[in-house]
């Protein structure tokens, strides 16, 4: 049972050591400047971020679905998905919801021109190679739109490499819809079919569906055989959406989802995001539904 014959210089390692573009110490952030910030909806803000080091800024590569750790030393550090596409170089974006200590600080005290710390990119990201050439069904619930927006932007930038793209996106109320105008113009241009739903309209003007997002699935035409589904949302969303997709004929290995767990280190050391021996930060956050089903606790059934 023992793994034999290693000394520190070549101690038993599982996979080849790697290094993050943000530095040799994976826990040490690289300074990055907030170039712009604007509210997407009242409690979600979009930050344009550029590394202070120009070489790093221009050379920063990542995949849609990956995330970074944003740090303000003394306040905290937290993982945030990348809602922009790696095809757009120089700067990247973060879409952040006010949720606690760090995010409060970001909303209350961080302004354009301020410097924050970033480490990453982290996680596996969406398997874009696999998705290439296929039709895509993107399903988002709430803040799940943030990582999917990165994938969407990627697909639009490389539009000819992908087949039909359908986006189903549910929000709580009309004023909670992220990227509303951008999505509308995508739909107008015919780049993607976009269907929106809200749980309730609260008296605000609304032309989309009122109801739960899963119902949107009944209204669209997709061919599960040529389509990959990518789903992103909170635990309740997964609870209903994933089985619905299976019923609709999607293979469980053709459904991808992105998971959220508590993460401290983001590089598969601290244990917080581990489910069994799968580290959500390192081996995820993107999993197929089949993987997720085989990991106890990963999605709440």
């Amino acid at each position, binding site marked *: 049972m023992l793994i034999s014959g290693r000394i520190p210089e070549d101690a038993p390692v599982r996979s080849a050591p790697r290094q993050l573009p943000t530095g040799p110490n994976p826990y040490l952030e690289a300074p990055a400047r907030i170039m712009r910030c604007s509210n997407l909806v009242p409690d979600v803000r979009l930050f344009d971020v550029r590394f202070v080091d120009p070489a790093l800024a221009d050379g920063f590569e990542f995949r849609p679905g990956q995330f970074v750790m944003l740090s303000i030393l*003394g*306040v*905290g550090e937290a993982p945030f998905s990348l809602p922009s596409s790696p095809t757009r170089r120089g700067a990247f974006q973060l879409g952040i919801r006010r949720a606690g*200590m760090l995010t*409060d*600080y970001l909303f*209350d*005290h961080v302004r354009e021109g301020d410097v924050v710390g970033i480490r990453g990119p982290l996680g596996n990201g969406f398997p874009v190679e696999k998705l290439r050439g296929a039709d895509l069904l993107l399903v988002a619930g709430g803040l799940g739109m943030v990582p999917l927006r990165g994938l969407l932007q990627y697909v639009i930038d490389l539009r000819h490499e992908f087949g039909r793209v359908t986006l189903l996106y549910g929000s709580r109320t009309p004023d909670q819809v992220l990227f509303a105008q951008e999505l509308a113009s995508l739909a107008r241009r015919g780049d993607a079919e976009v269907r929106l739903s809200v749980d309730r309209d609260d008296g605000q003007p609304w032309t989309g569906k009122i109801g739960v997002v899963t119902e949107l699935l009944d209204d669209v035409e997709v061919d599960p055989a040529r389509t990959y589904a990518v789903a992103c949302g909170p635990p309740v969303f997964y609870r209903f959406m994933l089985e619905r997709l299976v019923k609709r004929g999607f293979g469980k290995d053709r459904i991808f989802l992105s998971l959220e767990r508590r993460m401290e280190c983001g590089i598969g050391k601290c244990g917080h995001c581990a489910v069994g021996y799968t580290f959500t930060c390192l081996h995820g956050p993107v999993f197929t539904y089949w993987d997720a089903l085989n990991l106890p606790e990963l999605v709440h059934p």
Partner: protein
Amino acid sequence: MPNTKPRVGIFGLTGCAGDQLQILNCEDELIRLTQRLDIVDWVMVKSENDHACRLDIAFVEGVVATQRDLDALKEVRARSTTLVALGTCAVWGGLPAMRNELPREVLARAVYDKGAAHLDTVEARPASHFVPFEILLPGCPIERHEFLKTVNALLAGTRAELPRVPVCWECKASENLCRVVYRGEVCCGAMTRSGCGARCPSHGVACAGCRGPVEEPNYDANITMFKDRGISWMDIARRMETFSAPVWMKLGLEQEVRRESPAR
């Protein structure tokens, strides 16, 4: 980042003044602190106090034991933005709340005899029972480093994160021998929140629980652990009820003690 000096008040309700004294015990930082904070109301230390102005931060120590305490507390709450509870009395009730099942009149008679009629006294309860607090700093008394961390974080526009894990964490980190395992004592470490550096077990004394309970303590298992070692309810209770009696009583400690010793 906020760049004006925050206005600060420091108040004591009924208590031993230990938490205010701990602030004075930050000798190295004190002078600088008084420069960074605009302390406008602190009766224990200053003669000229503004009792009416708005406060950015207010620290309150002690339990509410008189109507006067309660009025003072509500007044402070109304005039401050960030209210910080200082110490176990304010957060959990501490010693003054230890035996609240005894009516106040009985206690008063026991101590003041016939002269008790003039006393303004209500059941002692933690300040946190009456008004919402933004920050709770437990400890009997508070730990200096936690107070400083809290103030520094507030000055920097954020909140300090205080440990939530039990004292056993710090106890093991300092490689103490466990008072329960090796000595069969009633140690409150597993149900008490850390931050003190496991001071008591590090001195060879079982934890008395002065920082108050962790979130969701396993009350039953703690009790069983002591009972299994042949310790009586009375002996368990006398240790557990010292600092956060209201919490344990609610969980059933009182009934058990009464069952074993109805005379109490």
